[in-house]
């Protein structure tokens, strides 16, 4: 191992450090460096052993038994046991971690020091993903305040995990420095230390990468991808994911999209090819205006005859709906290329002659904040960014069923009996082919009356300096596994 080699990753500053509650990339990156998952969910949605060496599922699909790895220690030297796992999962329940979305209702117990048993309240096909969920990082038994900085000489005592790195220093908003854990149970890490350097500005990250101050960055807009491709000391990573912007209309009573013709009109007025060309230089993939992305290749139905750009039809539909000219405001966050997306959409729609659109862009944090008077969830017509999900099922369940209204995910208030039934059906089947057929029907319904436009599925960009080897960027960038990385020179 090159003990003095430093791996430097650039990212936005983390805000929520609690391993059970964090949600975004830099937070996850920090946590998974310090802690380990019981099982590792790989980008291709397969699950592999990690702190758990193996597991069995009972026939009724209600009991999961995990066997734990032996000889693992925490950074402070204390051994890792089943008590830690039980504590961790109970804490997830206590703090109502987002991981519960996948885990559902369960009970956890430890028959012995090396075994943990989960008992489910109902069958849940996603449970195993829940065990490997972003927040399901194993903390030490009794850590009531994990990742809280304390006053005094040793402010980082609460950052105590079994992970490949231990936190050496942490300056909020500036950087985190990790040293490799010499006693790590896994394969030894090929470099001496790791730094996460926090940036507020994405262009600054790219500049720093280009001038050799960083080894890895991700999630930059397509325009920056061109720059990186053109430079010779860096390597561009382009990952097709299910990440996408959604342009959605509210469909609840009294809303614009209550009338299906309005939903249709918007779709006809949108030239998705042009959007992809202008905003992503054609790097995106056009889908079917439903959340089933082409990356889910098996589930994606490329035979759906999606309705193309037809401005006359759009106007005719509006006329028919008795609206004539649709005057409204398009809201959006200032992340990714969404500001530009709004500007281009406005032009496309207005050029049909039957739209009159204003744009209102909010700072990302504010826009996604439900207590803000104008937020993504309440506006009539808005752009929302949806991150990568490992399966279409999660997206459908979260965003387009009745249960999604209470959780703030069903922003279009789209409740369609057929969809409800299809999603419930898909939830209970583990057979891929059945699911595929269900999803084909879902696509058809979205084509018919879906309240959303998905202009494209944007690729996820990442880049490394040319000395980085063995880095496999995860679709959820924060979960990218740096253990296998090595550095040349």
């Amino acid at each position: 191992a090159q003990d003095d080699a430093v791996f430097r990753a650039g990212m936005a500053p983390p805000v929520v450090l609690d391993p059970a509650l964090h949600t975004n990339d830099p937070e996850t990156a920090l946590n998974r460096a310090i802690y380990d998952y019981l099982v590792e969910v790989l980008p291709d949605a397969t699950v592999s052993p990690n702190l758990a060496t193996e597991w069995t599922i009972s026939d009724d699909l209600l009991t999961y038994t995990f066997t734990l790895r032996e000889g693992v220690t925490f950074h402070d030297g204390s051994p890792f046991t089943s008590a830690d796992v039980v504590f961790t999962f109970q804490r997830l329940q206590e703090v109502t971690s987002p991981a519960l979305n996948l885990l559902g209702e369960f009970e956890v117990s430890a028959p012995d020091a090396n075994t943990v048993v989960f008992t489910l309240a109902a069958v849940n096909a996603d449970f195993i993903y829940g065990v490997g969920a972003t927040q399901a990082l194993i903390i030490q038994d009794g850590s009531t305040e994990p990742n809280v900085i304390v006053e005094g000489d040793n402010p980082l005592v609460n950052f105590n995990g079994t992970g490949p790195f231990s936190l050496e220093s942490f300056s909020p908003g500036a950087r985190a420095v990790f040293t490799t854990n010499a006693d790590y149970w896994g394969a030894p890490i090929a470099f001496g230390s790791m730094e996460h350097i926090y940036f507020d500005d994405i262009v600054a990250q790219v500049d720093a990468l280009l001038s050799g101050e960083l080894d890895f960055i991700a999630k930059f807009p397509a325009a920056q991808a061109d720059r990186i491709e053109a430079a010779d000391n860096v390597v561009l990573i382009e990952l097709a994911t299910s990440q996408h912007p959604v342009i959605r209309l509210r469909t609840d009573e009294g809303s614009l999209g209550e009338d299906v013709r309005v939903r249709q009109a918007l779709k006809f007025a949108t030239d998705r090819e042009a959007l992809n060309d202008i905003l992503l230089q054609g790097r995106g993939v056009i889908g079917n205006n439903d959340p089933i992305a082409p990356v889910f290749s098996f589930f994606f139905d490329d035979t759906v005859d999606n309705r193309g750009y037809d401005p006359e039809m759009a106007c005719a539909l509006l006329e028919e709906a008795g609206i004539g000219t649709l005057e409204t405001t398009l809201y959006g966050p200032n992340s990714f290329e969404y500001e530009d997306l709004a500007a281009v959409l406005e032009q496309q729609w207005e050029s049909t002659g039957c739209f009159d659109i204003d744009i209102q862009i909010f700072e990302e944090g504010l826009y996604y904040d439900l207590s803000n008077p104008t937020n993504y969830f309440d506006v009539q017509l808005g752009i929302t960014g949806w991150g990568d999900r490992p399966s279409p099922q999660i997206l459908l369940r979260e965003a387009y069923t009745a249960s999604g209204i209470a959780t703030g995910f069903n922003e279009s208030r789209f409740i369609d009996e057929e969809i409800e039934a299809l999603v419930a059906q898909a939830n209970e089947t583990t057979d891929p082919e059945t699911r595929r057929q269900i999803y084909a029907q879902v696509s058809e319904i979205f084509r018919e009356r879906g309240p959303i436009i998905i202009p494209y599925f944007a690729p996820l960009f990442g880049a490394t300096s040319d000395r980085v080897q063995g880095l496999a960027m995860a679709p959820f960038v924060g979960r990218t596994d740096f253990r296998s990385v090595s550095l040349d020179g």
Partner: protein
Amino acid sequence: MARYLLRRIVLLLITLLITSVVIFALTQLLPGDVARLILGREAQPQALEDLRLELGLNDPIPMQYVNWLSGFVTGDWGTSFTSGNPPIRPLVLERVGNSLLLAFYALAISIPLAIFLGVLAGLNENKWIDNVISVVSLSVVGLPEFVTGLVLINVFALGLGWFPASATAPADATFGEMLSQLTLPAITATFVLLAYVVRMTRAGMIDELKKPYVRTVTLKGLPRRQVIVKHVLRNALLPTITVIAISFGWLIGGLIVIENVFSYPGLGRLLTAAVERKDIPLLQASVMVIVFFFALANLIADLLYALLNPRIRLE
């Protein structure tokens, strides 16, 4: 003079108190739910409510203010709502250190340059050299900081590779590395300051050169150099000193844009983050520190002015 000093300090404290109320009031108006901002979009309602209770967000607002203020003056600045809930004081003080470093560096570049240019322009009032200085310094100030920063990065970091493109200030950096990192941000700040100080110095020179004592000194037969350096500059720089001290205040808290462009962990960025996350204790503490330095800079400006100006010093 002592009386003057005392009076100024009392006024400074009053100003700080007024500002603290203003800031506190403003933060109360910030939209958005702190708990949700902290826990994010996917947080569960129960978790949100727990957090609110824990942070004392349900207390009446005047009580929150009094709690905060009494803590603040006794040195207990509380803990941040976010990023591992660090104790605020060490965090802010660390950033103050960074900001001071950048401020001093920027001043070290800009002051001698600006004074030199200003004197040169003032001595050649309305001649071509004056016009050139005036237009050039205005041109650099006419560009927003993020444009000059961008250009500097593209030319000197990405193009020539002389300096790093970011100034992320690792704790273990050597002084040389630090300087190299801070050069481009400091130059960017210089661009902003330059025109202002140049014009002040120039105006000071022109005003002073018109005063009768310059004629007296010249007619004593003193060499021109001595007339300028010993007599005119001494008085002409008085208003400039005020401007410099005030720009120092600006350098501490006003470099938000530059800190963003170069990702320098200064007070400005800390503050921006605090605003975005509605991290009220952190926001209040950092604004108070910025206002303190701003007011302190003004105080120092006044004192320096008084000290160097016998008319005030000897009252």
